[in-house]
């Protein structure tokens, strides 16, 4: 069995009088796809924000790979190998696709000022390597041909891919995707599903997924957490969740 990578327990987030997340508990193993679903406003994105360090949870423990990370600022969390995409795509729009990927490698490459000014060999090497890695990812995502375009001008589906590539190039342990299929057409959704599968298999990264598109969720997830009103209702395998009457009532509706 694979070990637990992320362990969230007793997570609670309160906004004024509103309990957006209420004692949520789950763990993600190092090679699984774990999905969170639930009605709008259930608190899914808020869970992401707490885990990713964008909000400071009211209470709760978040342990990544044995190290507590709750309360750390988001860039520190990211350095623990936990990166995310956003519900609304957040690319560096006026930078090129390639540059988006170079920025993402900032913490991994030679950033010395003097080296850069003098274009020392080590600096050149580091730049070239970064470009090579970026090129590999662009190939992998099938958007190599847009490498020199401004990211903001890409079609939406491609922007989603780029956002994922930008996460992956930081060599994360856990990839968090917030509604990655929103705004994609059915064909693109299917591509996305394959991509998620591949990422897990090829790169051994765990995926934490929020999504409203059931065919995608049921297709890729190993386990699913269902939330409603900030509380976890159930955690289980896709088949179980799909047929759980509580889930159907709160979320899926009768088909």
């Amino acid at each position, binding site marked *: 069995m694979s070990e637990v990578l992320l362990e969230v327990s007793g997570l609670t987030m309160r906004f004024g009088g509103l309990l957006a997340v209420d004692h949520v508990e789950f763990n993600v193993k190092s090679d699984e796809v774990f999905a969170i679903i639930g009605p709008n406003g*259930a608190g899914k994105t808020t869970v992401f924000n707490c885990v990713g360090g964008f909000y400071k949870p009211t209470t709760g423990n978040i342990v990544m790979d044995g190290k507590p990370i709750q309360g750390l600022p988001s860039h520190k969390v990211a350095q623990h190998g936990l990166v995310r995409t956003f519900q609304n795509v957040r690319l560096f729009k006026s930078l090129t696709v390639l540059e988006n990927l170079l920025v993402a490698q900032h913490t991994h490459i030679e950033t010395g000022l003097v080296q850069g000014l003098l274009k020392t060999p080590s600096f050149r090497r580091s730049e070239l390597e970064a470009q090579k890695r970026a090129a590999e990812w662009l190939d992998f995502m099938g958007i190599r041909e847009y490498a020199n375009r401004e990211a903001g001008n890409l079609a939406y589906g491609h922007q989603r891919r780029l956002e994922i590539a930008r996460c992956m190039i930081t060599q994360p342990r856990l990839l968090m995707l917030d509604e990655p299929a929103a705004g*994609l*057409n059915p064909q693109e959704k299917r591509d996305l599903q394959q991509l998620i599968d591949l990422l897990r298999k090829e790169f051994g990264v765990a995926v934490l997924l929020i999504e409203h598109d059931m065919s995608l969720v049921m297709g890729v997830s190993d386990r699913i957490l269902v939330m409603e009103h900030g509380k976890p209702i159930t955690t289980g395998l896709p088949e179980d969740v799909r047929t759980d009457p509580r889930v159907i009532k709160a979320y899926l509706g009768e088909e």
Partner: protein
Amino acid sequence: MLKLQNVHTYYGAIQALNDVSVEVNKGEIVTLIGANGAGKTTLLMTVCGSPRASSGTVTFLDEDITQKDTHTIMQRGIAISPEGRRVFPDLTVAENLKMGGFFLKRDEIEAGLNHVYTLFPRLKERANQRAGTMSGGEQQMLAIGRALMTKPQLLLLDEPTLGLAPLIIAQIFDIIRTIREEGVTVFLVEQNANKALQVADRGYVLETGKVVLADTGANLLLNDEVRKAYLGA
């Protein structure tokens, strides 16, 4: 009711609509489908006069509105739930809705609010929450509710189901049907082509700024090309 004839629209040098002609009749639900970047949003916004068509004409209720200012057009009885929702983030939910009913009388506003609240109970629960802090789906509901508040004759919906839970998506399509019953004409842009074509009387398919297909919703659902490209069959 709404008629676009040979419309061309540009963003600076980029052409987004190329010789588009589209018609929406009173009482219909018309849907527009197309891939990302096909120009769907642009088409809706051209109706609103922002950006303006650089050639061709847009007529609404037999009036040429091509060169009219956005606010004039919108006051003629058009409402939009725009792409990206664009709720007023610092205003509360209730205030957002009231802004929708800006030109209404006080009692009409009350009635409108009640109407929206029955459609979206969540909005009533959160009437005093600042809209910017609502979840993605909640904001989407608010955007639709706000558009309904204006009591439009023609409702433009730009991907209204984006980010909504399955249950709510079903509800939204129900609502679209309901408001049509109430006499509102609906012009709908959707990624969810399957569902959209099911409710729509007619549909248009847009590809890179051009209308490539126009037919009834039912026929389009059966059309092979459409099935392949947009329905994922």
